């Protein structure tokens, strides 16, 4: 399973509704994957907040009485003379803007549903057109170049954390600096080896997985030392 699959299970994991086997798998993954552990913390915080504030948004004690009060107020307002008197020779725009709109709940719901359908249809059509244009206008992306793209993307994250580490490095003792640099070079060697293999064989799954794992390790190591 990848991180996406694990994150899909997080809600059930927090609720304790996973099977013991799945629970163990998720727990093991969380103990080694910083991103998923962070997602778990976020979800935990949301669930915790909801539990903490449970009951604060319950229904009002007498719903019917409240609705009657609201209804009375609306009727009083309707009975009052209109704030703007519309002259007989006023234009359609003036009439439209000064008209009093009174819609029932089904009317409002139907309007919202209609707007949602229009927006969704527009989005689907737009995405399809974009995809069609993409396939026609650009060459098919090879596996090799997608690896390159992912590598560049990951490299941006690495650069960010590298800067954070460099800021703190001056505070470390020489032994820690030496240990960090030596170990970083081990991970870099694994990244370079995988890249070399992928240049020779862009469809090499083992090298691709090792590249991803090594890049993840590098990010995690940088994050860990950036926090020191």
């Amino acid at each position, binding site marked *: 399973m990848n991180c996406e699959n694990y994150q899909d299970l997080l809600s059930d994991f927090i609720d304790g509704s996973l099977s013991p086997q799945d629970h163990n798998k998720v727990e*093991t993954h969380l103990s080694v994957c910083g991103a998923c552990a962070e997602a778990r913390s976020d979800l935990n915080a949301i669930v915790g907040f909801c539990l903490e504030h449970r009951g604060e948004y319950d229904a009002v004690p007498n719903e019917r009485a409240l609705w009657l009060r609201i209804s009375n107020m609306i009727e009083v307002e309707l009975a009052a003379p209109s704030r703007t008197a519309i002259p007989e020779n006023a234009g359609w725009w003036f009439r439209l803007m000064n008209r009093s709109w009174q819609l029932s709940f089904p009317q409002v719901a139907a309007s919202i549903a209609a707007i949602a359908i229009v927006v969704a249809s527009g989005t689907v059509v737009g995405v399809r057109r974009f995809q069609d244009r993409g396939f026609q206008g650009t060459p098919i992306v090879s596996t090799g170049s997608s690896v390159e793209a992912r590598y560049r993307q990951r490299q941006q994250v690495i650069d960010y954390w590298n800067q954070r580490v460099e800021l703190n490095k001056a505070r470390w*003792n020489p032994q820690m600096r030496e*240990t960090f640099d030596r170990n970083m070079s081990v991970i870099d060697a694994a990244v370079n080896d995988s890249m070399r293999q992928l240049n020779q064989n862009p469809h090499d799954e*083992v090298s691709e997985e090792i590249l991803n794992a090594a890049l993840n390790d590098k990010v995690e*190591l940088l994050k860990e030392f950036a926090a020191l």
Partner: protein
Amino acid sequence: MNFHSPATRTRVSFAALTALFLVFVIAGSALAQQKVSRKFPAGKNVRLELKNLSGTITVETWARDEIRVTAMMDAPAVHFNPRQTDAGLVIDIVGDNRGRSDVGDVNFKIQVPARSSVDLETRSGQISVSNIQGELVRAHVWTSGDITLSGVNAARVFAANTTGDIYFDGEFASGGTYEFKSGQGAITLRLPANCGFRLVATAPAKQISMGPFWSDGMKLLGEGRRIIGDVGDGRASVTVTNYQGRINFVRR
């Protein structure tokens, strides 16, 4: 020996001064190290969580329902505040000393009940865990340091370092998950002959030795850089990854 001769007197004086100097050096270093030992009450299924900056971590079991932590600190000013939680004991040297550069090595020796779970990590230094029979054993050295897990029989085991050897001598529980990962160093798993697991072992250096655990159902992938397949009933899940070193399976 003529003690009155100037040459002999010079030699004796030199030896005496050297001995005196060594005594001061040894005594000085012993005094500089601070030793702290504390005991904490614990149930049988307690969880120990330790985050260290650098130094060795040794976890052993004993037949008492308590945890004893002995810490040898290089720097006497290290903040060392173990916290007892509902689940067990948390020692966070990293968090307690964030932003400080004078922490140095803190060497831990910890005794726990056998059914404990242990979650250990350090930026550098060796980790050694023996005879744990609890739910979880996690040992993570972020940079350099050997990891030795012996007599371990836990449902979940995770051991990872960047540089250094990993040695596991224990059993795989049915349905358990086991992950071993190193950047550079040998990973050796010493297992009983009858153990069953589903294996994914990856070593780009193509140095995977299955020993007696090789079976015909196993597949070699990526020109021998990866081996996948079942050993025995295949009920435990085992993942072993070594970027630059060897992976060895050895029978007990």
